[in-house]
């Protein structure tokens, strides 16, 4: 590694030294051309080289990943962290995987859920306010991150199974779990911002899809229908209704408008665990188990697509995009089952 590389000079501007090193990240991705003479030049230039890290991947739509990701954001010491913040692995979730038990929260726990959901809502609104053409998703992530820690909360996505950022930004054909990067939002984009906060031992999760500048009619319709799907599901819910029932109502509304419903990703139980029972599919004819009981807290988060519902993953193994590259919109709330119906906590 310390030998000179034949014929290559350091790409750092105004350097001109013979190159001895290659950016290891680029190498891993099979990208060549990132030659540097020294660690110093490398570091100096790290931020200044936006590029598509997945040149060999056949993108389904127009969107491209834009790396490098900004450095990992810090969370102040005193903020309470979930079990995966160090290792990435949520042991507590894995312990109850497969269980049919759906937790009923007591008054005290419900109060905490209300609190964290309120904060998550505030954070989302702040992030949403920043949405405009020309801003990078990474910048939105920074704003969200700051807002979260300002409120004494931990951004739940951060390091969850090693997710690198504090929120998910899903543009156009990205269904969900988009990683905030250097890509700038463009006029005509639709972007989903998914926020989860962790406060005092509880998670609150919500997302919304926003229009960036002037969006075409179909895009606007897509976003509206997604919002309506969520609302319709919420409206039918009360104790005794089954978790498997939501899908029917959602899919019916989506289909009526010519859209499809993603099957791979589902709503989920949420309280002390980020994701747990129940599983809440958004499509019809599913066999999800569980009946709504007062005290349950969970999310419904339908993802509605212009074209196919089938998804595939980018090589980052997070970003889920539609197979056909057409757009997808989503809305999410954290919900509490009450004696008479449902309360939207977010």
């Amino acid at each position: 590694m310390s030998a000179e590389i034949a014929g290559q000079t350091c790409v750092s501007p105004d350097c001109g030294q013979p190159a001895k090193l290659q950016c290891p990240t680029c190498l891993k991705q099979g990208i060549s051309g990132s030659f540097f003479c020294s660690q110093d030049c490398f570091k100096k230039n790290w931020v200044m080289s936006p590029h598509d890290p997945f040149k060999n991947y056949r993108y389904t739509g127009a969107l491209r990943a834009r790396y490098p990701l900004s450095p990992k954001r810090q969370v102040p010491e005193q903020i309470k962290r979930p079990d995966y913040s160090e290792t990435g692995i949520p042991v507590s979730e894995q312990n109850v995987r497969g269980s049919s038990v759906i937790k009923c929260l007591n008054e005290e726990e419900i109060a905490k859920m209300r609190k964290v959901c309120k904060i998550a809502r505030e954070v989302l609104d702040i992030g949403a306010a920043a949405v405009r053409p020309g801003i990078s998703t990474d910048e939105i992530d920074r704003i969200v991150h700051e807002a979260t820690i300002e409120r004494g909360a931990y951004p739940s996505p951060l390091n969850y199974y090693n997710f690198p950022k504090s929120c998910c930004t899903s543009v156009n054909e990205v269904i969900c779990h988009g990683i905030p990067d250097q890509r700038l939002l463009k006029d005509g984009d639709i972007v989903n911002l998914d926020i989860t906060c962790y406060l005092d031992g509880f998670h609150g999760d919500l997302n919304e899809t926003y229009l960036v500048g002037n969006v075409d009619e179909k895009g606007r319709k897509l976003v509206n229908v997604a919002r309506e799907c969520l609302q319709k599901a919420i409206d039918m819910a009360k104790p005794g209704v089954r978790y498997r029932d939501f899908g029917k109502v959602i899919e019916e509304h989506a289909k009526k408008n010519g859209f499809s419903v993603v099957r791979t990703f589902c709503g989920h139980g949420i309280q002390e665990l980020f994701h747990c029972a129940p599983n809440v599919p958004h499509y019809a004819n599913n066999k999800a188990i569980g009946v709504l009981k007062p005290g349950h807290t969970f999310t419904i988060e339908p993802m509605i697509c212009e074209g196919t519902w089938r998804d595939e993953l980018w090589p980052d193994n997070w970003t889920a995009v539609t197979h056909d590259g057409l757009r997808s919109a989503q809305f999410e709330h954290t919900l509490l089952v009450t004696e008479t119906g449902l309360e939207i906590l977010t």
Partner: protein
Amino acid sequence: MPASDKLATLVQWFEDNEVEWTKDLIEVKDTNGSLGVFAKSDIEEGLPVVKIPKVNILSSKTTGIANVIEDEQLEGGCSLALAVMYESAQGEDSPWYGYIQALPVMEDLPVFWSEEEQAVLNGTEMEDALENDKKDLREDYEEILKPLFEKYRYIFPEDQQEKFYSYETFCKISTLVSSRAFEVDAYHENAMVPFADIFNHQSGSEHVHFETDFDVCDACGALEYCEHRFFESDDDLHGAEDEEGGWSDVDEEDIEESGGEEDADEEVGDGDEKELDDDEESDQELQDLEALESKGINIYEDEEDEQPPKDTCDLVMDRSAKKGEELFNTYGDHANVVLLSKYGFCQEDNDNDFVTVDEDMVVDACVDQLAKILKEKGIKASQEDVINYVRMRWEYFIMNESVFLPDEHGDMEDDEGHDDHEGDGCGCGHSHGGDDEHGHEHAGHDHDHEHEHEHEHDPEGGCCDHEHGEEEDEEEEEEEEEDEYRPRPYRIEYSGTFEEALKYLLHIVFVDEQMFMKFVDNPEMALGYFAELADSETKVKPRSSKKGKKKPVDIFVNVKRNVNHVLHQLVLARQKAYDEAGIAGDQQALKTETNQRKRFALICRISEKQILERALKLHP
């Protein structure tokens, strides 16, 4: 709805729910209102003909109210019946509608017979079993279900009570569950398995058998390695029951290695057994798909993708079949009392049959015999003394029973899940020893009801209720077994022989005091005694003589005489339970009887009486 529509709807349901069957080889036909599976052409042995994905069976884990069942910790038998009742009440909204609408309304089990018909069973093993059944059903309904319905009115609405949640409905559905459910695995336990339950039954010469991977994680149903297994201690495979974070102190490095090969199922929410392509990647790359799973995601399998290994219940050909034949499954080898109480029929001259005598009868017979002996010897003793004497001997035997008879009692109540087939589903409160094979190919044990059927004097409803006078306080006789010791009935097998345990017990009661003291000092001596006893019975004796001195055989002769006498008395006592008609009378009645239920009852009686006759011959 006409039968043909029902069948069509059912078949459509199979299609919609990924039930696979060899359509060119088998078909479902409706013959006189009941369904059966028939061979469309010759079929060879070894072929799996039907595969049902476990995610589509109806169990207490897959039903919509699974979380309620879990929250309320409802037990096995009741919970499956409740699941069926609930899904049935949802009508077309139930994912199992197509399957449920084709089910018969009920099975014609003795619980539904008229009093007159039930009376024909008097004296048989069925009599008490039936009483217990009826009692259990009532109890389960009043004590478990009714309160549940009231607690969860928003799930079991008032206006549905009468039609879907009444006691009658419960009984009917319980009979369906009893006769049709399969023991699927450690996670689902007993479940309704569509298609599999269409095969009718035949003992011996059956064509198919039910196959399933039993050994799955009982916390999440994973077929392959999952975190629960990793976190369990080596010994206890059932430790995974504690799902609420019992392993928060596990090292995180360990978790990295756990592989996570099973995913959250997108539909059911419990662990599914689909395998991911990426599972073979190194530990550092685990996060990718695991993460997605835990975000409530399931990786959808495209048709273009590789088919992951499916976790299914299969029906596999045990032997070949010819075109046009109806294909049968087998219930396994069961006594008539099981066949009748679980499946609603029984067989003549069933060599799995047995008759039982209860402890009361045994004790009485012992006491009588002892009193006689004492009288002959001119020894005075009060009734109480005699009883105590018997009791003392009895207790000794019970305490050491597991030493004297290790095999038979390895299978008592605490045996759950150690056999391929039996597993959790057969946590019945009775012994599996002896000839009572549960043959769990189609076991579907409805805990609360069915185990009663095997024994007239089942632990649950049997002996414990009888007055034992001052004898054995069973609680005292607890062995090393975890469960409370329960008095067993003693069997007379088809051949007329009494079970070993009883014979040994009686020997203990009747050996002379000196010998007994030796035994008390050292139970090994008793083992030796029994071994010699066994030997002496297999050796050919040139003369059988009840008296006289014979060398090693000496010690047995007197005891044997007494034991034999007691056994003889037991048979006579047992015979009294039936009404006056003898075997011939019953057989005559059978010839002319047209009521099928009464016929079954007569068949039971005849078979049992024949056993008793054989027993008399063996113990003259």
